[in-house]
């Protein structure tokens, strides 16, 4: 018969790009199982704090549990510190939460985006057990391998080994970054069967967050 498999890959891709005073976080809205589509309208994005947004692909059951877990912990932080969590603080919390389940991991591939305490854009990228890094941009999920080379080429992130240390955030304007996100999703949708239907794009800047949905190919 075979053992019960606790995991399932629901597919999808997530992307985030950090700018000097904004952050773009985007994810497609297709939920799949095997070669079937379960729904074309499922959000992979969670607003954890007013300047901190999490996009996760992978097993959406674990993603939902992870989002609820983090929201509850954020509320405890708010009660204790009398303020909402900053993005770097949430980044560390997410890493710890993932590693806590090192031996039965959350099957979630996360990208955390938002503004740091100085108002600069920040993006944190994770593996399933909490290893994380602050970068200028990242993609995770089934279409990530198709998107990352394009982002590398367009955003020309300087090597982290350079001295003096160079800023990883892109000098691109907010609208240019959003256009780039739309382009990479359109490209990944062509070849990745799990990516498509719609892309939900959330932009976080000084005045709050703004959300738009763009149609993608549905095949």
């Amino acid at each position, binding site marked *: 018969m075979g053992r019960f498999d606790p995991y399932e890959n629901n597919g999808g891709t997530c992307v985030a790009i950090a700018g000097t005073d904004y952050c773009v976080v985007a994810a497609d809205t297709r939920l799949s199982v095997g070669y079937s589509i379960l729904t074309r309208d499922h959000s992979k994005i969670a607003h954890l704090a007013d300047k901190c947004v999490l996009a996760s692909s992978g097993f959406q059951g674990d993603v939902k549990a992870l989002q609820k877990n983090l929201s*509850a912990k954020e*509320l405890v932080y708010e009660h204790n510190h009398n303020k909402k969590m900053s993005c770097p603080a949430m980044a560390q919390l997410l890493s710890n939460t993932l590693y806590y389940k090192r031996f039965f991991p959350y099957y979630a591939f996360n990208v955390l985006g938002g503004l740091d305490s100085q108002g600069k854009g920040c993006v944190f990228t994770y593996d399933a057990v909490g290893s994380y890094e602050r970068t200028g941009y990242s993609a995770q999920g089934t279409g990530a391998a198709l998107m990352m080379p394009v982002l590398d080429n367009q955003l020309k992130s300087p090597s982290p080994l350079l001295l003096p240390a160079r800023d990883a955030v892109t000098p691109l304007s907010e609208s240019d970054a959003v256009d780039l996100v739309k382009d990479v999703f359109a490209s990944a949708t062509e070849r990745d069967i799990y990516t498509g239907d719609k892309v939900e794009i959330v932009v976080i800047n000084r005045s709050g967050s703004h959300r738009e949905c763009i149609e993608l190919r549905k095949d």
Partner: protein
Amino acid sequence: MFRNQYDTDVTTWSPAGRLFQVEYAMEAVKQGSACVGLRSRTHAVLAAANKAASELSSHQRKVFRVADHAGVALAGLTADGRVLSRFLRSECINHAFVYDAPLPVSRLALRLADKAQVCTQRSWKRPYGVGLLVAGLDVSGAHLYYNCPSGNYFEYQAFAIGSRSQAAKTFLERRFEGYNDYTPDQLIKDALSAIKETLQGEKLTSSNCTVAIVGRKDDGTVEPFESIDGNRIQEIIDSMEAAEEAPAAAAAAAESSSMQEEDKGTDAAPMDI
């Protein structure tokens, strides 16, 4: 007469069927500085008189947000109150995690009461020395509960606890019947007036009281539990004092004019004789 023999631990009954340790814990509540709570159908207000240990120190926090829809004001051992607030916050978060809905206020009061009861039936524990006014909003409207160290709790339209709370209770007893239809501003004013009664002559300012409100506006939007900003409290206090002085001035004017008429009467009387 028998108090001293049966008050050593909480698990000893007195011959009259009382638990003296629990009653002593309720005394601790009466020693704390005053707190007042009142509610209408849609809003609940908590107010506390701030007490500072000395002029050099900050005042103790007596009003705590427990969730967006609920908060508490406490009187008694503030440390016990802080720990209970943390417990209440955790209960609200856990309920919302499991049921994706806010914990109804009556259930919140029940959890707190059950926790207090445990401490009245264990020989290695002592009762919590704090009384809490739990105010919140849920689908059935605004609610106010009083939880006492004994584990008992009751729902109230308005209530006051702590030292000199009897003065506030007397004030509230005269006015509570109209509270269901009060606007939020009217509730806040009455809460401040009730706290003023407990100050016994000391001037009420925004630095010696804290006021918090939670409720649902007419259009259905929820105002989450929040302490009202000090400047706004001072504005309300100032407007209350101005309103008091205006009719007082009118009453004084009426008195002096009636006194003049009496004088004329006495002037007229001798001529009659």
